[in-house]
């Protein structure tokens, strides 16, 4: 059975990049550097499972995973900007939202943000979007 990892990643990253009003995104294995003092998002697509969705011959594969994001805004300037951006992302990637790729649909199961942390000149807010995907 062919793997759809590439298409799933493309679908999720396209959906993320299409959210209006969010800062630049640094995708995986990128040479893009952050600019000091400029908000940005680090993105990682994690694949946590690929197994048959049903029993029997030629079952369709179900993919599970987490889209891990880290939103970074300048340290020491309050939480309002981060909260606004987190709301934008969570609204766009709310539970049961479908993102349609080529022969694949990625659906979000949950999306949430954890507490912000001040590190290295940034206020970092981790965001997780739990997703699963089926071939169409």
């Amino acid at each position, binding site marked *: 059975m062919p793997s759809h990892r590439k298409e799933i990643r493309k679908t999720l990253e396209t959906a993320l990049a299409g959210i209006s009003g969010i800062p630049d995104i640094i995708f*995986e294995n990128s040479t893009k*550097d*952050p600019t000091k003092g400029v908000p940005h998002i680090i993105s990682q697509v994690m*694949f946590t499972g690929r197994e048959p969705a049903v029993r029997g011959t030629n079952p369709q594969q179900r993919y599970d*995973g*987490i889209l891990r994001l880290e939103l970074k805004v300048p340290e020491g300037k309050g939480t309002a900007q981060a909260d606004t951006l987190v709301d934008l992302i969570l609204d766009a990637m709310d539970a049961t939202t479908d993102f349609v790729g080529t022969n694949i649909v990625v659906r979000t199961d949950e999306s949430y943000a954890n507490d912000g*942390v001040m*590190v290295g000149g940034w206020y*970092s807010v981790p965001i997780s979007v739990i997703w699963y995907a089926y071939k169409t």
Partner: protein
Amino acid sequence: MARTLNIMADVMSEVDTVVETQLKSLLVRIARSLIDLSPLGIHADAPNGRYATGAYIASHEVSILGNPSTGQGISSKGRKPQSVPHDGGSGMINKIKNATKEQLMYVRFSNNSPHADIVETGGPNWRRRKGYHVYKRTADRFGVQQ
């Protein structure tokens, strides 16, 4: 009497299944908490300011009975681990889901990457010396021992 024992065996089997399911669910939530709270980019005061993405999160491991931790970690400087590849963020969840009930009698989460301590509590070059406290926050969240 034989009839009663058979019913009890069935009930115990059901209880076992429920316990295993709930235990796996809890462990997956713990693993997911470690993933959720892990920084994606370790940069701090790196000379070129570039992110060393993924090294810390990829170094999370879960040890279960019969499948101990390797004690190695990935360095963000590109050095490879010297023994069996560890689980990484995603691998922890797969290992838990595929483990037997007996293997789950002993479970330990760890991160042995060279910068694990700095990520947890902050380092001398980190402004304000704040860390991410990934393991402490997860331990507090689930009431488990660190």
